[in-house]
């Protein structure tokens, strides 16, 4: 389990319908850990055929922290959610984390459309960063 995972699953379990879930997502997106605007370059861009996602990271005190953004409200919320989930964890915990989190919160749909949005690519990238950190230090 990652740091915030339980809390997030609990939050999502409280919604009675998708409207509430989306409202929550959109709110999450408003408080996203923003990527430095100067870093919104192709280097940090994850291109889906529908929405754009930018992602950056930082390694501090043996933990990974992520920063991101997206051009669409809902995907920004999803990016914020993914950041909430992974930020502040150790590379090892991130790498070994099983992806059924999104099934648990019933958002798998958004994640399975690999090529619509950049989200599953984003998770791949997060794991790649974790892998690289692990190899650098270990």
């Amino acid at each position: 389990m990652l740091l915030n995972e339980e809390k997030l699953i609990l939050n999502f379990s409280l919604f009675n319908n998708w409207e509430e879930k989306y409202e929550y997502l959109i709110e999450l997106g408003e408080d996203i850990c923003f990527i430095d605007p100067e870093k919104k370059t192709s280097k940090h861009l994850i291109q889906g055929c529908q929405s754009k996602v930018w992602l950056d990271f930082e390694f501090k005190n043996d933990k990974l922290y992520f920063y991101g953004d997206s051009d669409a409200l809902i995907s920004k919320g999803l990016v914020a959610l993914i950041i909430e989930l992974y930020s502040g964890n150790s590379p090892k915990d991130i790498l070994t984390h099983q992806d059924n989190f999104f099934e648990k919160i019933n958002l798998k749909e958004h994640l399975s459309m690999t090529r619509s949005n950049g989200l599953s690519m984003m998770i791949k990238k997060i794991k790649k960063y974790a892998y690289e950190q692990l190899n650098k230090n270990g």
Partner: protein
Amino acid sequence: MTGEEIRNCFPYFKSNKKSIYFDSAATTHKPQSVIDTIISFYQKYNSNIHRSMNKAATIATQKFENSRSLVKELLNAEHSSEIVFTNGATDSINLVAQSFLKKQIKKNDIILISETEHHSNLVPWQQLALETGAKIDFLPIRADLLVDTDKIKAKINDKVKLISTHHISSISGGKQNIEKIIKIARSLNIPILIDGAQAIAHTPIDVKELDCDFYCFSGHKLFGPTGTGILYSKSRHLDGFIPYKFGGGMVDNVGLHENSFSELPHRLEAGTPNISGVIGLGEAVNFVKSVGFSVIQEIETSLAEKFNHELSKVDDCVLVGSGPRSAPIFTFNIEGIHHYDLASLLSEYNICTRSGHLCSQPMIEMCGLSGAVRASLSIYNNEEEIENFMVILKKAISFLKR
């Protein structure tokens, strides 16, 4: 047939009473008769074709070749042998690129397409250009996103070795003046390919009258099975096609180091084809014939008018391409709302649309957009769905704009 009767031919709507399917430009549903044809193939006379001498194989082969005749009639081609079965429009275009154009195109030659093509009618030419040193050039486009036929000639010179463009746009539903484009190509003796992927279900085609060199489409957009496609080619070009897939069924005589290819079109159909798919496609053609294009056009025109009228009442809605429509395809954005957000919400409301760059990134970018939402209708849709769609669209907009 009435719209209601047509809708009843499609079992999808019985299983999906609450959803609205406005994604027919991506793929159409299949009438029960097409599904039954596939079932009957697998249950009754499943067999490989062209090879085995036995009764099941004979029936299967006859039905398979009968589909070829049906497609020949649909397109009013001269001979059945001008109809090549492929896996889809994409495959057909690649076949023209690899088997026809590649052998005759040289460095600095030009392939003339447009910026408004679907990726499938763009990327194969980009790649061929990369490979051969040829260049891509683009037909001039008018404000209504169709080719400006008055300005084509300026783009043409003796370096142009092929023109390829679409018949009806997958974005705007607008119909090119392909008659005129073909006439110009013809008069200058330049081969021309028409990508009919979005036209085939909406308008009658007569390749003899059009006099184009190539015409292609996908079965799955004509109420037929996935994994089927057609390339029509004039015989005189087909004779020179160099196969680019090799194997069983396309060779007559095989030695250890050389072999002789079969007659056309079999030479271009290596390996066991999508037999059930092709036979199902034949039935889809029968279905279209039984409805008739005059009924199809009548229904679709009235659906398009209704949709257009209702959409015009939605605030801040901007259509991509505003000319007259030959297919009920509407691509739009709501100002201030991201298309991904809108499509996500529509999806939650059980509406099937498509959003994003719609496999036409250059065109979308030419319009200064990052994407859009597309609602594409077909003969099985009705006015009630359009009304419900508008109600939900407005709900989604107010949710996102709150």
